[in-house]
C-alpha cells in the first residue's frame, strides 16, 4: 500500500494527482468467509480492521447495503468524549480515547482528531452538584474532569448570554478538556483503507436479505449478490438493527428513531470546543471549515426515514438562541437526519447472541461516533475469541432481564425523550 506522507503528496503533485492508488478495492463476494461483518459504517469497518490487525483473521468481508460511510458515520456531529459517570461506560470510552489519540498515525490517515474540550453547562445549583458528582466519578476512572464556575465559563465562551435577563442563567459547567472532534469521513475511509490492505473484502451495494441458521448455528447469509457462507457473522447496522433482527426472529430492546443535525454558514473562528446547553437539548461546536455544527433532540417517533421534520429543528435552535444569541444572525446551510438504534437504557450492546456464531453490536443511541474505535476493538475481540472482553462485559444483551441497566441518564425506556 502506498504510504500517505508529505513526500507522496509532492510526488503525486507532478502528475496532477492523477495516479494515486485506489484506497480500497471493489471485490466481488467470495462464496465463503471466516467472518462476515454486516454494515460498512465506522463500527463495521473498525471491527474488520481490528479483526485483521489484533486477531490475524483476514478472510473477512464487510457487506454494505449502500456505500461505506454513507450512514451515521457520515451524518453525526463528530463529537468524541468519555464524560460518563458509570464505571462500565467510562472505562469503555476512555479506552476508546486512547485509541483516538493515536488513530491518525495508526491508520496513516489524518482523522483530524482535535481535543479542544467539551463543556456541559449547568443552570442551577442542583445541576452543579450533579456535575461535581459526575466529575468525581470520571476522575476516579482516570478521566480528566474540571468543574468550572460561572467566571471560568465566561472566559471560555464569552459570546454566550451572561446577562441578567435570561431564563436559564449559566451557573457553571463540567469540562472534559481531552474531549474533542474528528473528521468523521476520514475515520471510515482510514479504517477501510487499512482493512482492505490486510485482505478484508469491502463489498458495497449488497443488501442482506436473509440468514442461514441451522440448529441454532449461523451458516451464512443471503444477499442481493448471492449467498455467502460464513463461520461467524457480526451485525453492525445501527439504525437497521431491528430490520435484520426481524429476519432472525429476534426481538431486541431497541427502537429506531430519527435524529437531526444542522450546520450554519461558515464563519471565522469563534468557538473552541464543544458546548452543551444544560437547560434544553442543544449542543454546538465549530468545524474546521468554520460552520457551526448543531444538534439536539430526537424527532420523537419511530422512524427509518433518515430525514426529520422542521418543528424539531426549530425547537433545538430555540434552545441554541437562548444560549448563544449571535446564532440569530447566521444562515443555516443545511439540515439532515440519521436513524438511531435507541437502546432502552441509553447504553450500547456488544455481545454474543443465542445463535452460535452470530454477534451483535447495536444500541448506540446518538453517541456511536465517539466509540467507533473501541466498539470495533471490543467487537473484534468478542467475535475472534467468542467471548466478551472485560471492557464490554457489562454491555450485554441480558442486562435488561437481569436488571443491570446502564441508565446513564436515568430516562427509563422512553427513548424518544432523551
Amino acid at each position: 500500500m502506498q504510504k500517505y506522507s508529505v513526500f507522496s503528496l509532492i510526488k503525486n503533485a507532478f502528475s496532477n494527482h492523477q495516479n494515486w492508488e485506489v484506497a480500497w478495492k471493489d471485490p466481488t463476494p467470495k462464496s465463503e468467509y471466516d467472518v462476515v461483518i454486516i454494515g460498512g459504517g465506522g463500527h463495521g469497518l473498525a471491527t474488520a480492521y481490528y479483526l485483521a490487525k489484533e486477531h490475524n483473521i483476514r478472510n473477512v468481508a464487510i457487506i454494505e447495503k449502500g456505500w461505506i460511510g454513507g450512514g451515521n458515520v457520515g451524518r453525526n456531529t463528530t463529537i468524541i468524549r468519555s464524560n460518563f459517570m458509570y464505571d462500565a461506560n467510562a472505562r469503555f470510552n476512555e479506552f476508546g480515547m486512547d485509541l483516538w489519540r493515536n488513530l491518525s498515525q495508526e491508520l496513516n490517515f489524518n482523522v483530524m482528531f482535535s481535543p479542544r474540550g467539551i463543556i456541559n453547562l449547568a443552570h442551577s445549583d442542583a445541576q452543579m452538584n450533579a456535575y461535581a458528582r459526575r466529575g468525581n466519578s470520571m476522575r476516579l476512572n482516570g478521566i480528566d474532569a474540571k468543574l468550572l464556575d460561572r467566571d471560568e465559563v465566561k472566559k471560555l465562551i464569552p459570546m454566550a448570554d451572561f446577562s441578567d435577563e435570561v431564563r436559564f442563567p449559566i451557573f457553571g459547567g463540567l469540562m472534559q478538556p481531552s474531549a474533542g472532534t474528528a473528521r468523521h469521513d476520514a475515520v471510515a475511509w482510514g479504517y477501510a483503507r487499512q482493512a482492505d490492505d490486510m485482505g478484508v473484502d469491502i463489498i458495497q451495494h449488497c443488501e442482506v436479505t436473509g440468514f442461514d441458521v441451522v440448529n441454532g448455528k449461523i451458516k451464512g447469509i443471503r444477499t442481493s449478490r448471492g449467498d455467502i457462507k460464513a463461520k461467524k457473522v457480526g451485525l453492525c447496522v445501527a439504525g437497521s438493527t431491528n430490520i435484520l433482527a426481524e429476519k432472525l426472529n429476534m426481538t431486541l430492546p431497541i427502537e429506531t428513531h430519527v435524529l437531526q443535525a444542522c450546520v450554519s454558514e461558515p464563519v471565522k473562528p469563534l468557538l473552541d470546543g464543544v458546548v452543551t446547553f444544560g437547560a434544553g437539548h442543544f449542543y454546538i461546536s465549530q468545524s474546521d471549515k468554520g460552520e457551526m455544527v448543531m444538534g439536539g433532540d430526537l424527532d420523537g417517533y419511530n422512524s427509518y426515514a433518515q430525514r426529520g421534520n422542521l418543528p424539531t429543528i426549530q425547537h433545538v435552535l430555540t434552545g441554541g438562541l437562548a444560549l448563544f444569541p449571535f446564532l440569530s444572525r447566521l444562515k443555516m446551510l443545511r439540515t439532515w437526519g440519521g436513524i438511531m438504534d435507541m437502546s432502552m437504557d441509553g447504553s450500547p450492546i456488544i455481545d454474543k447472541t443465542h445463535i452460535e456464531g452470530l454477534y451483535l453490536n447495536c444500541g448506540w443511541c446518538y453517541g456511536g461516533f465517539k466509540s467507533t474505535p473501541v466498539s470495533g476493538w471490543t467487537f473484534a475481540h468478542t467475535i475472534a475469541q467468542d467471548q466478551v472482553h472485560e471492557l464490554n462485559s457489562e454491555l450485554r444483551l441480558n442486562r435488561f432481564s437481569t436488571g443491570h441497566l446502564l441508565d446513564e441518564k436515568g430516562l427509563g425506556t422512553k427513548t424518544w425523550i432523551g
Partner: protein
Amino acid sequence: MLYIKCPYCGLRAQKEFSYGGDATVKRPNINEEVSSEDWDNFVYMRKSPRGKHLELWQHIAGCRQWIKVQRDTATHEIFQTAKVTEEIR
C-alpha cells in the same frame, strides 16, 4: 411537519401532540402471576418495524386524549387514526 387527524378535534399539527410509543405492546394482566420474561417483553422489547406502525399519541396541547395512529415509519405517511378504544386493522 406531520399532520395528525385527532378523532376528537380534526386535523392538527404535530406540535400539538406528544408521542406515546408502540400501541401493540400489552401490559401483563394485573393480579396474575407474571413471568420475568413477560415483564421483559412488556418493558423493553420492541419490534420497531420499518413500514406500518401502530402507535399511541396524546393530543397534549389540544383535547389531551390519547389516540391511536397508524403511520409508515419509512415515509412518515399517516394512514389512519382512531380513539384508543377503537381498533385499527
